[in-house]
């Protein structure tokens, strides 16, 4: 078991390193760089000599390998470099923006899960065929709604027309209601689809027929027998989605003016602020592999069958 865990962690580290290297190479290949963009701004009125002096001060003209090794070394010690555009070190910006994204991601996923489960159960238990068809079409609709449109519509209706929620200077939780809703709708779609499909699959299994024969109601069958079995693939999907959410919901954050990892990403891409982009890429990679690792390790916890296999192997 421990060998398995160590092996998975090593794999995860390899993935993170690969993400770092590939993003470094890609960023170096882009025309221009952050220093040029910031200081060749006509409003600053700097001449080419002054900009060159700044470039040397920031160390951007060193050979590629030197820069790569420096960056790698810094990352391993937790120093993510310097954001040229904002003029502050990257680490504080990342940690300051993280809580907002964490809150949004966690609540967003929780809501999405609730929505997905509600849809799946409703579709399974619905007495009418036409209703079932409508509910099964819902995920397709949810994933097609443009996120920015949904966000703006929710603001227009709930904040400006009905005046239930304030968007400017809201309280901590008040300010999360609409963004969480905006995120939850498209995220719930894949969850709901996978859950529905798996439920249908499990319902064809023999033990379900046995349960029905023993007199369980449809709701009882669904809740006690089918749900747990249909849950596993959904958990993997949820893990993937959570990893995505942690990387930042750029559009939602822009519409609602939240400063999370998403808006940090958008700003740094706009100004080609390589250090910040690298830090965000590595952070996202770590989140992704971390979440997937946790889900993989949780599988035996949820499914006793997998537990027994491990014991037998050991």
């Amino acid at each position, binding site marked *: 078991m421990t060998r398995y865990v160590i092996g998975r962690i090593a794999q995860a580290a390899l993935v993170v390193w690969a993400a770092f290297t590939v993003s470094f190479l890609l960023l170096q290949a882009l025309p221009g760089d952050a220093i040029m963009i910031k200081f060749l701004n006509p409003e600053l009125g700097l001449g080419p000599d002054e900009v060159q002096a700044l470039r040397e001060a920031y160390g951007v003209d060193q050979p590629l390998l030197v820069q790569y090794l420096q960056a790698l070394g810094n990352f391993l010690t937790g120093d993510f470099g310097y954001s040229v555009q*904002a003029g502050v070190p990257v680490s504080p910006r990342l940690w300051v923006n993280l809580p907002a994204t964490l809150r949004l991601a966690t609540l967003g996923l929780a809501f999405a899960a609730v929505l997905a489960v509600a849809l799946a159960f409703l579709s399974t238990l619905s007495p009418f065929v036409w209703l079932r068809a409508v509910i099964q079409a819902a995920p397709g609709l949810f994933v097609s709604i443009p996120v920015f449109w949904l966000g703006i519509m929710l603001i227009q209706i709930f904040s400006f027309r009905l005046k239930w929620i304030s968007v400017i200077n809201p309280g901590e939780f008040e300010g999360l209601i609409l963004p969480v809703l905006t995120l939850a709708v498209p995220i719930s779609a894949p969850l709901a689809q996978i859950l529905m499909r798996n439920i249908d699959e499990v319902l064809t299994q023999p033990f379900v027929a046995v349960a029905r024969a023993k007199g369980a109601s449809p709701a009882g069958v669904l809740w006690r027998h089918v749900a747990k079995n249909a849950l596993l693939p959904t958990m993997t999907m949820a893990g993937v989605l959570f990893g995505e959410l942690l990387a930042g919901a750029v559009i939602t954050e822009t519409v609602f003016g939240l*400063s999370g990892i998403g808006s940090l990403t958008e700003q740094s891409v706009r100004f080609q602020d390589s250090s910040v982009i690298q830090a965000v890429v590595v952070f996202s990679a770590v989140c992704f592999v971390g979440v997937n690792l946790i889900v993989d390790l949780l599988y035996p916890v949820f499914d006793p069958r997998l537990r027994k296999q491990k014991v037998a192997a050991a």
Partner: protein
Amino acid sequence: MAKERLPVSLKQFFRKRVRTAAALAAVLALSVSVPVLAQDAPVQGGTLIYLEQQAHTNLYPPSGGFYPNGGVLNQITDKLTYQNPETLEIEPWIAESWEVNADATEYTFKLRSGVTFSDGTPVDAATVALNYDIFGLGKPNLKYPVSEVINNYDHSEVIDEHTVKFVFKRPSPGFLQGTAVIGSGLVSTATLALPFDELGDATKIIGSGPFVVASETLGKELKLTAREDYNWGPAKFEHQGRAYLDGITYIIPPEASVRIGALLAGQADVIRQIQAYDEPQVTAAAFTLLAPNTRGVNNSIAFRPDNPLVADIKVRQALSLATNTQEIVDTLFSENYPRATSVISSKAAGYVDYSDKLVFDQEKAKALLAEAGWTPGPDGILAKDGQKLDLTVYVSLPQPQNEGVLQLIAQQWAQVGVKLNVLPGDAGTRTLDQLDPLKTPVTVAMVGRADPDVIKSGFHPKNRDWLLQKGGSSQNVQSFVDDDLNTLLEAIASEPDHDKRLAISGEIQARVLDQYYQIPIFEEPQAFAAAPYVHGLEFEAVGRPSFYNVWLSR
């Protein structure tokens, strides 16, 4: 008992009623007039919520040109002089009086006494001298750039505690106005000892202004509070004491519909950057729309004559004739965006009406292009010697609706057979390509500053160098240079006589338009919207908001 009412005469009956009615009327009149009187007098208190489109980047005063920076700096710093936005005259502020020598190489300022920064240190000659030494010369070890508005600075001299002299290497007539611009806000010595990048943190900026920075959430929110002991507004203001508002909260919702909706729903008090197509919403709700002119070079497109495609003056003239600026203004904008009638705004110093040089004539445009040897190819685009008249321009994000403007121009030019590619571009590619006349034969040009020097800021090779001349910021220029233009531009920055300067400005405008270097499109304002209960919102000469005189009547 009712039956035993005493008889009363009719006269007495009415007299009583009239007296009661008169008393009632008097009471009513008083109760109505008292609130009316109260509305005219400023009320102290309240916090203003101001919505900006972007966060401030750096609060080093010469970086105040960027509007989000200037919007903050204008409240927390004061300047030596105040430029009256109506008359464009320079009036005393922190400097009570000043003397300029005959050839504008020496300026001596006498400072007002009793002015202090918010950390208690005095605003005296030594501090003012330090400020201007840094604005004029930069500070390379701390990475401070030189201020764009200060030319030919040599050194400063502290004569006594309240008198400071600035000496210039060559005549610098624009300096007096330069002491009033947003880039010349005075900050404390401690502030100027910090590395440039740390000035992105608003809490580190110590000025002498009517507001001080209370707290900041980087990129999201900034809180200012009124300074209680403030007592030195611009000399000609009636209001000299502390600001009426208790505080201002800057919030940054990047999405335009959220800003307008928040204002109209009562969640915000003032917003900046409201687009022309959103103006009807604001006026329909009886909110105030304010669009101060930025008084500088108009929103326009400029050519890079180094590129062989636009090197021929006939081609440039044809493109100018093919551009229908009235159509652009009517289609995309509102009455707050007047059509341009010269290189600079009609409200700018030195403006000359050259609308006779800015004509729309498609037929003449086609004729000129044919004369220049361009014939339509099989796809309708003009070609000559195997080369198509295919031009490129990058969208300039700070300019309002710039992509729409450029695309409309592209449509208009297509009608005479010229193709214009409008590229959004990413920041890196755009910055690089803008320096190469072969890649960007056309560029968007606009700069706001209320001094005749503004025209030099745009065209001179050592400044923004819109035309990309040899000896300027670009290494990619082959040969183009316009010495006559450059001589005039340098003259305007060094002519001490005010009237002569304005005359030179007129000559420069004539040259730019006669050479068809630039096609001015419209006069760009800064558009703000405010709730009806916001009074006293003013703007400095280039459209930055000043909240000093603002009071709320709610």
